[in-house]
């Protein structure tokens, strides 16, 4: 009898062990896609590869819309007690993520991992800057982008401009824009909808500032919206629309701008590198990619999404999530991801792979974003980031629609923004 019980017990134990092996650890990840093309399918494929390589873990990647929708989704999921284990969200969300304890600091995971520090050190500094909150690493660069200018070379030829000499300064931008504008075409295109205007504005602010500081302090607690240089930058936008009439009036949507460019309705657009592959695949004309024209100096915003790990998940899950992040950010993967989407490869070692070298040789336009990185700085990043974005966007829109002057709009934004940050001083 005792024997029987013993055997049964052993059997049960073996069975439960077997099921434990057979039943992989289920992780959920939320991710956004903010560009054209099929980035969502690529992430699915990446996840499947990971799951195949790691039978003990199963990552379920959930596409949650654009960046804004994803932020909302993550917040409500965490509040709803059904948080994903890891997620991709804007780098600019990190202060909020840390402040509200939605994401966890990754320092311990990195320290515990023998390759951890080398892994981190290999990331391009400009991107890694966007990962710290009060000295702790909260996120890992993933779908990182910067803004570049796409221009229609055929249109340049048509009006007698050199297709290999895109504008390098604001003055040239206006000059070329005037030449390129006709009844059916505008010279310049910028997306000014909520969620996009603040990004482009970071770039113009950096190009025009005199102290190297654009819109905010690095600790995310101060904003400088209403400096004379920023007012000048916003006024420049208004002039493009109203004085020179080389940019569409009103608010062009982020997602409509590439379509307008591809349809030949706009000759030069400011857009994310993340759209490069999409434009390459769909352009019916010869196009070029160049640095954003300089004001007082070169300048461009970085942006895009980082990996975060949700606070409060079990250690086992943390480890699995970390493994997944490392998988997605491995040199080869990051390089391939960059080729497939147009996002900037996030690690120095990527640029030494044959993969990326060959790619740049065959498609030099792709290299522009990397070369421009030396002038790039993070986009508007503060505590309560979503609300701060809204404040700046709303007021920029107020200026664009003629409700306020550039100065009034940025004064208003400064005032509302300071009130928002009062809690964090």
């Amino acid at each position, binding site marked *: 009898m005792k024997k029987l019980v013993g055997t049964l017990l052993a059997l049960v134990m073996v069975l439960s062990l077997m099921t434990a092996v057979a039943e992989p650890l289920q992780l959920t990840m939320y991710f956004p896609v903010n560009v054209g093309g099929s980035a969502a399918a690529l992430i699915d494929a990446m996840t499947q590869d990971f799951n195949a390589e790691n039978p003990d873990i199963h990552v379920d990647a959930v596409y949650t819309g654009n960046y*804004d929708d994803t*932020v*909302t989704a993550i*917040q*409500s999921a965490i*509040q709803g007690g059904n948080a994903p284990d890891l997620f991709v969200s804007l780098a600019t969300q990190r202060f909020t993520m840390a*402040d*509200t*304890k*939605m994401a966890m600091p990754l320092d311990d995971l990195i320290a515990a991992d023998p390759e951890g520090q080398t892994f981190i050190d290999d990331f391009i500094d400009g991107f890694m800057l966007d990962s710290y909150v009060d000295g702790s690493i909260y996120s890992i660069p993933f779908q990182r982008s910067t803004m570049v200018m796409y221009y229609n070379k055929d249109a340049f030829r048509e009006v007698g401009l050199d297709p290999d000499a895109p504008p390098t300064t604001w003055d040239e931008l206006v000059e070329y824009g005037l030449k390129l504008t006709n009844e059916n075409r505008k010279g310049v295109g910028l997306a000014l*909808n*909520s*969620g996009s205007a603040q990004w482009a504005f970071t770039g113009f602010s950096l190009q025009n500032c005199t102290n190297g500081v654009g819109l905010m302090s690095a600790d995310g607690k101060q904003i400088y919206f209403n400096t004379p240089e920023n007012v000048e930058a916003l006024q420049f936008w208004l002039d493009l629309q109203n004085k020179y009439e080389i940019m*569409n*009036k*009103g*608010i*062009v949507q982020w997602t*409509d701008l590439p*379509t*307008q460019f591809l*349809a030949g*309705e706009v000759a030069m657009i400011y857009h994310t590198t993340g759209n490069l592959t999409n434009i390459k695949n769909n352009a019916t004309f010869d196009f070029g990619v160049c640095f954003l024209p300089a004001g007082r100096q070169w300048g461009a915003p970085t942006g895009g999404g980082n990996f975060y790990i949700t606070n409060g998940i079990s250690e086992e899950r943390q480890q699995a999530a970390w493994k997944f992040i490392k998988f997605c950010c491995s040199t080869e993967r990051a390089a391939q991801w960059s080729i497939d989407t147009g996002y900037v490869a996030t690690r120095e070692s990527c640029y030494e792979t044959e993969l990326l070298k060959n790619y740049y040789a065959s498609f030099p336009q792709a290299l522009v974003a990397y070369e421009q990185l030396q002038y790039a700085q993070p986009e508007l990043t503060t505590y*309560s980031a*979503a*609300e701060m974005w*809204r404040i700046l*966007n*709303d*007021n920029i*829109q*107020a200026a*664009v*629609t003629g*409700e306020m002057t550039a100065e009034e709009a940025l004064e208003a934004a400064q005032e509302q923004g300071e009130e928002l940050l009062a809690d964090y001083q």
Partner: protein
Amino acid sequence: MKQKMTKRARRETAIGWALLLPALLFMCVFTVYPVVRSIVLSLMKYKMGMDAPEFIGFANFTRLFGSSTFWKVMRNTVSFALMTVIPSMVIGLVLAMLVNRKGRHIGFIRTAYFYPSVMPMIAIASVWMFIYMAKNGLLDQMLMSLGLAPMDVLSNKATVLPAMAVMYVWRESGYLMVFFLSGLQSINSDVLEAAAIDGATGWKTFRHITLPLLAPTTLFISTIAFTNCFKLADHVIIMTEGAPNNASTLLLYYIYQQGFTNMNYGVSSALTVIMLVILLIVSVPRFFSQDRKIHYA
């Protein structure tokens, strides 16, 4: 005997409540309780990241009342209501009069007017967004082919709400039409015939007989129309997200934004309370039309 009655009454009470219980439970948890909870939370500071709400009295309200965005949203909400409710009621009545006849094609025409009501608001918004899209959109294309300047209605603060109102009137008129239709059909045809014999012409009959008889229906329809219009947010999410500079932010969208984007439950609860007050006001006619409804049911 008396004993028996009480026993029966008690039994009746028990069964009555038992039958009600399932439905009542859901209604209490998801209608009564949230109302109470909104009122309580509206007096609290409660944001994401806070462990527990903190009592702050009416500070959420005073902060809102001092914010220009809040007043803008309220202005938008009220003007959107006026821009949509009155036109859709007038058009709804006109449509109802046009189709208050018999005939083969009538069914088809009614269908044409009513079908938007069975489409989800977000589908309607997705389609109309292309109508309103800058330059490439149908409206701007039409304007340009007439030699006019494109309007880009959605990114202009003066036109964004009217443009959304046109879309909503298109949807709502057909819906209100069916109520007017049922009101019209309940008017005794003898009355109209008598009027005709007395020599009353079309307009006179309408003005002095039809319209007064429709008054209770109209009052009731206005309540439905206002309630429907205040609970709109879906199309704002799809079309503009409140742009430009909150020129198209409506109250429910603002609640959603404060609650789920900014994760500020205190402020969004205060807004919810304001919304509840508005709904209570527009529902006043219901208190008076309780018995009348049955007439044309």
